[in-house]
């Protein structure tokens, strides 16, 4: 009897959280899911249970560009972010006065609001008045100023660079902490065993920080997939859709063109992708979770 009422009390206590999750996460997700299967014309719902939105999406001539750009954005961004983060983290893990100072100030890009970062970089990279183009042309490396964000071949990579500038510091700090907690005896034992710097990195450091490394990779991937402000404020998907990625395209289709059917279909594609990433992460780390986080 007592057991029973305890159980009910427990359910009652978590009710607010469950309600909030239902209202703000599950509910909208469900709405987007059903919306993607409903044909909408001029803001009026016209029949449920159709794949016409997805057909429209795949027929959209911009869609392949969006997929390509999103791949650069998410995969390129994540891989470069983690790799530079690992390199910077290795450097920060060295004990010296300089790295101690750097560890403190490296988070600066992180505390700036997204919009500020985006505006600052947008003007620094501007074709006519940007300081970066100006500096490069004055050094005589180029004939005139380059329009970094106006060039369809460059623009996606410029966005990735700004993204890394903004997201890498936390990755570097997390990995730095992980690297610093690698037992020094293991590194010394490896030195005695004949390991050079690369061997020690590959066979001692990386396995010891593997847990942090996969966690940071997945978290970066999720951040980057969800990142909207940076590309939207810097380019708005332009020029001519050449920097259009899923998040900006969803926003544009849904809230500028009110093309909710296609917008929601794309959101569903996005959701499936994210769930795959998280599922993969949980699968890779299944042993570590059971072991309580280490090894």
């Amino acid at each position: 009897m007592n057991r029973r009422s305890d159980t009910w009390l427990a359910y009652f206590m978590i009710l607010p959280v469950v309600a909030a999750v239902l209202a703000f996460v599950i509910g909208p997700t469900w709405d987007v899911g059903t919306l993607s299967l409903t044909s909408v014309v001029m803001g009026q719902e016209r029949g449920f249970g159709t794949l016409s939105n997805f057909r429209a999406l795949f027929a959209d001539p911009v869609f392949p560009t969006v997929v390509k750009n999103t791949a650069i954005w998410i995969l390129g961004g994540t891989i470069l972010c983690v790799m530079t983060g690992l390199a910077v983290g290795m450097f920060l893990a060295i004990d010296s006065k300089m790295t101690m100072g750097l560890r403190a100030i490296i988070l600066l890009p992180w505390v700036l609001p997204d919009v500020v970062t985006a505006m600052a970089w947008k003007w620094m990279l501007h074709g006519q008045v940007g300081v970066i183009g100006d500096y490069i042309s004055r050094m005589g490396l180029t004939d005139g100023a380059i329009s970094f964000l106006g060039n369809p071949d460059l623009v996606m990579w410029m966005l990735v660079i700004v993204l890394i500038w903004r997201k890498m510091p936390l990755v570097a700090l997390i990995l730095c902490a992980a690297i610093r907690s690698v037992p020094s005896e293991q590194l010394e034992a490896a030195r005695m065993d004949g390991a050079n710097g690369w061997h020690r990195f590959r066979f001692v450091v990386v396995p010891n920080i593997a847990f942090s490394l996969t966690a940071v990779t997945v978290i970066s991937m999720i951040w980057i997939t969800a990142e909207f402000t940076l590309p939207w404020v810097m380019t708005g998907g332009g020029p001519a859709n050449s920097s259009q990625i899923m998040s900006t395209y969803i926003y544009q289709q849904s809230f500028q063109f009110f093309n909710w059917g296609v917008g929601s279909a794309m959101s569903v594609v996005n959701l499936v992708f994210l769930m795959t990433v998280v599922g993969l992460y949980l699968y890779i780390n299944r042993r570590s979770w059971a072991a309580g986080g280490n090894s």
Partner: protein
Amino acid sequence: MGSVTLRNIRKSYGPVEVLHGIDLDVADGEFVVLVGPSGCGKSTLLRSLAGLETISAGDISIDDKVINGLEPKNRDIAMVFQNYALYPHMKVRENMAFSLKLNKVPKDEIESKVAKAAEILSLTAMLDRYPKQLSGGQRQRVAMGRAIVRDPKVFLFDEPLSNLDAKLRVQMRSEIKELHQRLGTTIVYVTHDQIEAMTMADKIVVMKDGHVEQIGAPLDLYDTPANLFVAGFIGSPSMNFMSCTAQGGKAVLSNGQVLGAAPAGLGEGQAFTAGVRPEHFVIGSGALDAPVTLVEPTGAEIQFTVDIAGDHVLITTRDRVTARLGDTLNLSVEPGKLHAFDPETGARLGGV
């Protein structure tokens, strides 16, 4: 071959010098134990030998080849760490094979070497386990296996047994000693436990504050300690010290009683510190009367604490002496077992 020579080794951390010119010769196949109190520089000396620390001055040579500037991996030395330092993500087999793999030894040769080392250390059944699935003693054996497979010129051990419980420590002590007899490889072994040093070593190096106090065979150190520090450090329970003066060939205590015959070579009236080990007192025959202040039977022997000229002095005997608290014991010192030390410098006086 694996003889080690250290000449005038100095090591400073910034302005602080922690090794003040160490000289040591280790013959091929010898088991040398570095012993001394915490912070005296044992680990630093061992790590300098391994190449994990760079020395500030001096020469380290193995087989008469100076190796000061060589990387640890080129010194042909293997080291066993206090906390094992096994690679947690590698199985026992991979832990032991790691150095061979890095040195591009052929696969079948690696396999046979690992199998052989595992057999010596009775680890064969555990080759496919991870370190965290092993007990402390087994991990210690894996750490030794990792050293053995390399077949190095010298093994270094830094307090390898201090993380084990007392019983296992005794067992591993004899295992290491057996291993040494079997392989015949030179071993330099660090401990702060003088019993470990006495039982295992061919040669003991007693260190204090970055200096070598004495080098010698265990029983030599026990019988003829070179100074007060070594006399007090080696032996358990430790040696008793009393202030005496030499008068007419006798060691006379501050209260006028005679402790025993003074060692030869002391000047008449010279003040010195007399040292006598607890087991070198003879009870029941002597001129020295001492009241008992504590009786502690341990089974195999009885420990008496007595009052001699105001000092507490420990005496052990294997005889069933029935003296009780407050009784007076009649004591003398076994001939030739009274050590004399300079009260100021602590150096040994007289010849025994």
